[in-house]
């Protein structure tokens, strides 16, 4: 009897070793290009015609009472700034991304899209800034460095036949590779509700920060 048990155990043991290899956490996953940050304002998440209160975004009104708005047209969600009919001489509003960390990535570039409609003067504009000392609430207390990008303006107005959801101006790749730590990106809209040359619509969509070399 005892004689049998030994080879049995040996066999069982060797088979056991032979068979155990795939763990529950080992399984194939498609390889894909991760983004450091991406916001496309999915149509089913944004609520049309609502003040920007999306996720961890910050909406701040510097002058007047007009916020950036969440908009949806033809299944595309985006943000819009317009001082049209605000009745206020100066409208300045900021849309600021959630905190974005650049420590775990390399070769980062920022891209986004803007569009303009009924914009007739360069003073009716979007400006883009980056900050690494914004505390999440006090916008004007932070240091905001301007960013150079291709932006929609009075010369890029979309046609009246285009959908309002047509966001057509690519920012181009803005190099962020020298920046580390936590940053915020701010989109600042400026216009007027009393000066009809400054009451166009400026729109923003598809913000993306990614590793350029991926």
């Amino acid at each position, binding site marked *: *009897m005892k004689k*049998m048990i030994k*080879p*049995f155990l040996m*066999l*069982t043991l060797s*088979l*056991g070793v*032979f*068979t*155990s*290899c*795939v763990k*529950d*956490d*080992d*399984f*194939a*996953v*498609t390889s*894909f*290009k*991760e*983004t450091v*940050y*991406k*916001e*496309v304002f*999915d*149509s*089913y*998440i944004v*609520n049309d015609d609502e003040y920007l209160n999306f996720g961890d975004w910050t909406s701040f009104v510097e002058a007047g009472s007009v916020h950036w708005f969440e908009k949806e047209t033809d*299944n595309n969600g985006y943000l819009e700034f317009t001082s049209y009919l605000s009745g206020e001489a100066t409208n300045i509003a900021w849309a600021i991304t959630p905190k974005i960390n650049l420590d775990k990535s390399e070769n980062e570039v920022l891209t986004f899209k803007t569009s303009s409609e009924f914009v007739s003067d360069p003073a009716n504009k979007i400006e883009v800034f980056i900050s690494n000392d914004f505390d999440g609430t006090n916008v004007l207390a932070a240091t905001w460095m301007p960013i150079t990008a291709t932006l929609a303006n009075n010369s890029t107005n979309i046609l009246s036949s285009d959908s309002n959801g047509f966001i057509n101006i690519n920012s181009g790749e803005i190099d962020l590779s020298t920046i580390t730590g936590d940053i915020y990106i701010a989109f600042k809209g400026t216009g007027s509700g009393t000066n009809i040359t400054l009451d166009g619509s400026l729109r923003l969509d*598809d913000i*993306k920060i*990614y590793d350029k070399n991926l």
Partner: protein
Amino acid sequence: MKKLVLSTLLVLQAVFVFAQQNPALKGKVIDAKSQKPLQNVVATIQSTNQSALTDFEGNFFFQSIPSGEQVLVVKSSGYNQQRFVLEPTNGEPLDLGVVVLEEDITSEQQLSLVTITENDLGDDNSGSESTSGLLQATRDTYQQAAAFNWGLARFRIRGLDNEYGVTMINGIVMNKLYDGRPQWSNWGGLNDATRNQEFTMGSAPSDYTFGSALGTQEINTRASFYRPGSRISMSGTNTNYSWRMMGTHASGMNKDGWAFVVSASRRWAEEGYFDGTDYGANSLFASVEKRINDKHSLNLTAMYAQNSRGKSSPNTKEVNDLMGIKYNSYWGYQNGKKRNSRDKDVEEPLVMLSHYWRLSEKTTLNTNVAFQTGSIGNSRLDYQLANNPDPTYYRNLPSYYANQPELWNDFVYDVDGNQLFEEDGVTPQYQNLDAQNAGNYFRTHSQINWDAMYFANTTSANAGRSAYVLYEDRTDDNLLNANSIINSSLSDNITLNAGVNFRKLRSHNYQNLLDLLGGQYFLDVDAFYTGDAAQSDLNNPNRQVGEGDSYGYNYLLHALTFDGFTQFKFSYDKVDFYLAQSFSRSEYQREGIYRNGIYANNSFGKGESITFENFGFKGGLTYKLNGRNYLDFNGLYQTKAPSLRNSFSNARMNNVITPDLKSESITSADASYILRAPKFKARLTGFYTKIQDATEISFFYGEGIGSDDGGDEDTFVSEIVTGIEKQNMGAELGLEYQITSTIKASASASYGQYIYSDNAKLKTNDDALAATGNNSLTDFGTVYIKDYHQPGMPQTAASFGLEYRDPHFWWVGANVNYLANSYIDFANILRTDNFVVDSDGYAFAGATEENVSSLLKQEKFDSFTLVNLTGGKSWRISKANRNTVGFFASVNNLFDIEYKTGGFEQSRKATFPDLQADLANGTPSFGPKYFYGYGRTFFVNFYINF
């Protein structure tokens, strides 16, 4: 007359005895209980395949036996077999004396086996049912544990689907051409009549077929092979049915060479274990044999097994939490009675004519012709321009509201609807009143509302036109099956088996209207589409259909297959080995009866036919260390034609052949150590199977795959996964130790790793795309499934049992079973690039490797332990004969353990942001659906043998 018969028999007997003078080996076999001699018991010397039958007085004789250590096996159906290790010395005759055969108690236990129906989710007429049917009546400790103890938990031997086994009746293959699986219901309830069975495990050789990687089961219905006598039994249980009655009579061969067997049974339940699952099954069996002369016998077998049962729904966790695990959404009250909307009806009678021809002492030829006809129907509700009648439709459930962020608030109201504040002494909580209301409403409206459908139909805007109907997906098959099997002892050491098998199938598939539910007619259009696309049949557009009419889809599948095999078995003192090869040819074709409006050009008439030619080789050897210790090896390589089901990717609509369709290839090997000592039996096997180029087609109602329109319109999508590679390896162990003459211990274990060993390719077919003039096929590229586990079965199982068998014919047993490593059936479409890659080529927002992996991780079900008890007793009621009465009783899952037997992810939220949004608050609207095993169940069977 009687005297004459008797004296003739006696004279013959005398002659027979005379002929057996001075045999080299003899013995006498008697029944342990009655002490009467047993006739027609088979004694076989294993190394030579020499065998002898016992005569009228239970005696068997061998004129010669080879020298050296030999193993003699004495067996008869319904009895435990006996083995003797012999060491004949040259010339000395051996007399074994009296061999006592004890009745096989597991044959009673077999009756308690419940056929587990697999996922009722199939949107087609797949016969998928559990493998335990394949395992009945085997001798092997391990296989018995697999059948009796693990079968209920959907354990599969070696992790292989039934389609890798071959189930035969008289050598006629019963696996359906449609999906490769046997339809057990075709002989359900005929346990007594199908008791003569032979099994092989893995790729070990069978005398009847080449087989595949799982094993073979051969049911023999030759009338003279049944033990003469009658048997009546009555059973009660609380599993899928409540009651069963069965009666069987076998005549034995009379002097004119006639033998017959008849059997009938009925099983029924108003409600089985799960809510609303009714059951009704009637089975009839007859077999008549005429021995024409010494060389020729003819046998006619007829089987009629009709089965109708209500199915039970798989449910999401949300629904189970609200309603409990016995909840079934498929039924509703109608006139005070529970009516199930999802019935499965099977009625496929079979007749078979068999010819047995002894060409010589050493060669037999068995030819069978079988014809099977009948229908399988799976019923379901259909509706047009009306609300989904499913009570668990996602808009009826709390999660639908809970997943709408804007509905959440922290208001609290009193019973009159006045808002309460903190100063009123309440703590406002973040809550969703709509979700709560939906939950309350669902609890009281959790079943199908038949009355509402009747009301809608009778008050229809278009007078008489039903908005709701009950229909069945119907398959009417005509199958002609013929085979011929030769078995020849070419020499003392060499046996040849060879066979050919021919099958011709005409399978009519259609949607059959069962009940207009109060309306006058139903309009045969697909309301999802407009214009031609809405027409199921352009040749007869806008048909008004009534009960019994076909509509929706209607087509024939034709299949013509031929296969043949040869096998040589060599037996020597120290080693047995075999070699076998097979060839098969399969030809499939679809023929549309309707000209579908979406596929006007390739839906009507005969489509292209496809042909597959396949072959296989296998071999193996048994090395006999001595009469007690054996080593056994088997190896197999074969290619296998895809099933009919997987050959036409959109069979309901058109003649298109599945893109990238290929034959599967199967490589399999196993090695065993076998010990057969008088008190200790053991088997340890290591196995490995690789299946390559497998194809799986599944059908589901999907939401515009890959788009996030959030829409509600369902479209019937077929998902085509090709190039699937599966790898099954593991070890199995069976031990049996006779502690005392009355107490026996047994232990079995199976440890396997059944995975997808490579990624595959995925395409979908979407009719909605074709309807708008686009290509209906979408290529999703690679589906990343490498190292995912094959779903729906415990990959680890262990069992320990003790059995006490009293000499006074009663016995009790108990066993404890541990089952683990069972995984969910994952949604393939979520494992494609489409899940994570956005239209810009970059991942969706928030998709990191970490959280994509965590979303896609395959759910592993909790392990569980089941305790079962069995027992029985039998009494002799007459000294003069073998008449006995007895009972068998068992309790399964004694501690009422709740366990999942399987489940599947839904494919509806097919992109990362969609799935994440659905999971955001913890109660997804499209979460996985689960199947649960039975809680505590019992089975009692009373029987009389006379």
